Structures are given as C-alpha cells and as structure tokens.
C-alpha cells in the first residue's frame, strides 16, 4: 500500500540486473519508481521531477564498475545527489548585536512557540548565552501563558505586555527591556499566519523591519505535503529568512518537505524539533535527512545484500 523507496528500488534492481551499464531504457522505469517514492515522501512534484532528471543525466552512460551492480551505482548517485541538495554541513545560527534578535515565524501550529523556548534553552545551556523570550502572539488564546509556562520550565524570563494588541510595539519594548537587564539574545515568538493572509503577512514584515533580527527562522512542520513550496516562497518573499526549522521529526514522516524548501528558496535548515520537551532540539544533519527522505537506512542494507 504505502511502499517505501527501498521496496521500489528492490523491484527496480531486478530490472537493472544483467546490464553492464546504465542506459536510457533500463533506467527509465527505475526512475519512475523513484519519482513516485519521492512523491510518497512528500517531495514536491516539480522538484521530484528535477531530481530524477538530474540523477538520470548523471547515471546515463556510466560504466558499471566490476565491484558495483548497476542498481548499486544508481543508488549511490541518488544518495550523493540528495545529500548535495540538502547542503554539505550543518549551518550555524547568526547572533550578531547586543542583544542579538532572533525572529520566529511560520504557519499556525507549526511549532513556533515550542521552538522559541527550546532555542532559548539551547542557547542558555549549550552556548552560555543569557536569552530572553518575547511573547508577540496577541491573537491565539493563551499564547502568552503558553510561552510563560515554557519560560518558567527552562528558567528564561518572558517579556509580555498583557492587553497590548500591537506586536511591533511589544517586540520593540521587549528588546529595550532586554538591553537594560543585560540579556544578550532576544527570541521573538510570533502568531501563526497563512501566506495568503495579506494583513498578517504585512504585520510580520513590520515586526521584521522594527526589530532588525540578526536571524529570522521559518518554522515548518515536517509532515507538510505539497504546500511547502507555496508557504516557503511566500514567507521568503516577505522576510528573506535566514534559515528553516523542521519540527515534529520524531514522527514517522519521511519529511520530503525539507527537500522541497531547500530546493525552492535555497535557505539552510538549521534546527530540527524531535519532541515536545524542552531538550528535544537538534542541529540539522543534511546527510541524515537525505537518507530519511530516500528511506536509505533500508536501501543501504539492500544494496549490501545485492
């Protein structure tokens, strides 16, 4: 029913067996299977197509070395190509200025508030920083309480102005406040918004202009499907964000949205969320993500068997 890539490659390997090199004919069916598997992994339609085309270009005419089967060679090409697309190494977060301002934005429910607190916790415990959180979501019921509860858990102060409905003002005052208290990082949590909501997109642009963040992070749910391309583009147009956060990777989704976003806006994925607890944050490992999208854990063992 919901076959993963390794099953499909397994089948395709039979097709390739017995050929000395990779030719147009013997590669076509395999790549079609690969494209379908990528779609099942939620890679965007167009990007899946581009990926398989570029794999094909690289594969065609390649002599199969005696030590490698054609199928193995194809898997290797795909893996290298995917890893190259995901970026070669983990990208760092930029914390310039005093205080350095980090702005968090994204769709509703993607995990912004949770991530804001996790990041504060990470910077405090792992990087020796002295962060403050700013609650600039004035819409969602209990959004401020949520951040306050998390702030208490991690022992990081949360700046909020009860009753104030102007997120730009809250963010600015929060930064002023952080300065006087000597906090060297300010993380601004914002309300969830849809890319088609013009008013709300204008609002985040205004916040962005007002706080001049040294790092703007776009938070995306790893379970996102084909829509990732629209959202990433729209947020990037308005914010020109510096990096992406991929949340809820503790689920069983393949996370093809990661490739979609990387290929669409060419911004690095910097952090991943791997749970609801405050320490469930990790820096992004491009190679692991590549393997996850391809279902490679299984593929590698498959190739070893072949």
């Amino acid at each position, binding site marked *: *029913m*919901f076959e993963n890539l390794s099953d499909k490659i397994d089948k395709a390997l039979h097709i390739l067996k017995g050929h000395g090199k990779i030719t147009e004919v013997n590669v076509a069916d395999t790549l079609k299977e690969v494209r*379908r598997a990528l*779609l*099942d*992994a*939620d890679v*965007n*339609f167009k990007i899946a197509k581009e990926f398989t085309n570029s794999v094909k270009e690289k594969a065609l005419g390649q002599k199969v070395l005696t030590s490698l089967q054609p199928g193995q060679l194809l898997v290797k090409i795909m893996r290298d190509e995917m890893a190259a697309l995901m970026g070669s190494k983990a990208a760092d977060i930029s914390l310039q200025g005093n205080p350095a301002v980090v702005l968090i934005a994204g*769709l*509703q*429910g*993607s*995990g912004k508030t949770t991530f804001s607190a996790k990041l504060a916790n990470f910077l405090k415990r792992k990087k020796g920083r002295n962060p403050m959180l700013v609650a600039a979501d004035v*819409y*969602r*019921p*209990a*959004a401020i*309480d*949520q*951040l*306050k*509860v*998390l702030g208490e*858990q991690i022992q990081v102060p949360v700046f909020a102005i009860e009753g104030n409905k102007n997120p730009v003002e809250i963010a600015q005052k929060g930064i002023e406040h952080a300065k006087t208290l000597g906090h060297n990082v300010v993380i601004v949590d914002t309300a969830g918004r*849809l*890319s*088609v909501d013009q008013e709300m997109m204008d609002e985040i642009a205004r916040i962005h202009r007002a706080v001049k963040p040294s790092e703007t992070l776009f938070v995306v*749910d790893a*379970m*996102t*499907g*084909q*829509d*990732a391309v*629209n*959202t990433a583009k*729209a947020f990037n147009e308005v914010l020109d964000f510096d990096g992406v956060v991929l949340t*809820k990777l*503790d*689920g*069983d*989704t*393949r996370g*093809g*949205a990661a490739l979609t976003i990387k290929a669409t806006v060419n911004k690095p994925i910097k952090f991943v969320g791997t749970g*609801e607890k405050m320490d469930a944050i990790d820096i992004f490992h491009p190679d692991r993500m590549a393997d996850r999208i391809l279902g490679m854990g299984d593929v590698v063992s498959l190739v070893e068997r072949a």
Partner: protein
Amino acid sequence: EKTRNSFLHRLGKAIAGRSTVDDEVLDELEEVLLTSDVGVETTLKIIDRIKLRVAKDKYLGTNELNTILKEEIAALLSEKKDQFDQEIPLDVKPFVVLVVGVNGVGKTTTIGKLAARYKKLGKNVVLGAGDTFRAAAIDQLVSWGERIGVPVIKQQMGSDPASVAYDTVQAALNRNADVAIIDTAGRLHNKIHLMNELSKIRKVIQKVIPEAPHEVFLVIDASTGQNAFEQARQFSQATQVTSLVVTKLDGTAKGGVVIGVSDQLNIPVKYIGVGEGTEHLQPFDKHAFVESFFGR
C-alpha cells in the same frame, strides 16, 4: 479570475482538437492531483477510472471530462452514511465527542468552533480539558469556553486525562447537558504509550456511558502530506475514529490527502475549518471540496 480555472484552461488546451483523452491530458490531470497531495496511489486509481469511463462513454469534450473527473473524485470520498441523521441526535444525551489528532492540527480550536455551533443549534454544551500536558492547553480551552459561554471541566496540569474525561461525561450527565466535547493532547501516532493513553480515555468514558464516545473526530491539517494515512490508521486503531475534520482549508493547501484517507479507511469527512474565528467551521461539502482542486 485570471488564474482561476488555470487547470481547466490547461486541460482545455491539452485536449483541443482531440477526440480522445490522451497521455498529455492525463499528465496534466496527474500533476493537478499530485500537487494537491492526493498521493500516487489514489491519483493512479483516479486516472485508471477516468480511462475506463472514457473508453466506455466515448469522451466528447472538456465539459464532459470535467464532470467525469469530479464525479470520480467525489466517489472516492467515503459514502459511509453518517450514523446519525442529525448533527446531534435527539435521542442520545449527552452526546459525547472525543477529539484526537497529532500536534498542532487544530483540535482545541475546532472544539471551540464546534461548541459555538452546537450552542447555536440550541444545545447545552460542556467541554472537557483533556489536554493536561501541553503548556497552557487548559487556559486555551478555558478561554474558548469564556468566549462562547460554555463551561469547561478541568483538573490540574499533569493530571490523568482519562480522569478529566470521566469528570466531563459525569458533569454532562449531572447538568443534563446535550453534548460533551473532550479535548486531548496532540500526539504523534508512532508513540505507543500516548496512543495507549487514548484507548484508556475511551475505556474510562465507557464506564459512565457504555455507548460513548458517540463521535470520535480525527483532526487533520490540510497542509499534511502522505503521513495523514498513517495518522488515520493509528488513531483509528486506538480510538475507532468516526469522522475526519480537515482544518486550515483557508490557506493554499488543498487537503487532497483526505480523499485517499477517506477512501481507504472508509471514514467520512464531517467538518472543515476555514479560519481561526468562532464561525470558521463548515459542514463538509464533497462537491465544493472537489471543485476547489480545479478552481484555484
């Protein structure tokens, strides 16, 4: 209006002057479906059905193809009759609704909107704050309760959600309420202990009313990709999901994955969420939903 019907426009161009649905037309169709998260398997199923119909009916023009297309997609959306002929059946009291789903899909918000809707229908509603885990989840539901004027049954953060569910159903009985809606914490379906917790909530509710929960809504975010299949499978196993609610359809995501989910698991979609306000909940309309695939 220019971009509206872009698919129909492309489809029209692709089939202009042709008397059969050829590969080019089918490729266009495949693209529209796949980019709406319909998924490979369901897309191929739809295309096969179109091919069959076309061979049989002798395809004539764009309009006919259009109609056939929409019919075939609509046919996949579960035909399973809602077990109740009214939103809230008169002879079931209290009508107990359990709301489940992965993190952040819109469960709590949907409950607020549902409560407002049921209240408008003249029902007495009680809410249960069964998410005792996520920061300020109880405050969030309480705030919805205040907004629409509906009582919320709650305990401390960190208390047993099954016990909150029990209290809620009991309170609904005591107060002679028509409906009890119970919130649960978001959970990823691959976490066995959290799924077991849901099964326990269900069992505890049944200690008070053996037939309850009468309705178990699985909330799915319209932007979710193929993972929705596994969500539906696992949540169904743990709680016997009766209907789907698709949220955030006011965005650019089309929620196509629910076509396959509804088809394969035979679960009907009952409501859609189209915004964050109290009034942003609508009963599901199959044809409008299918229409939105090709219209935008």
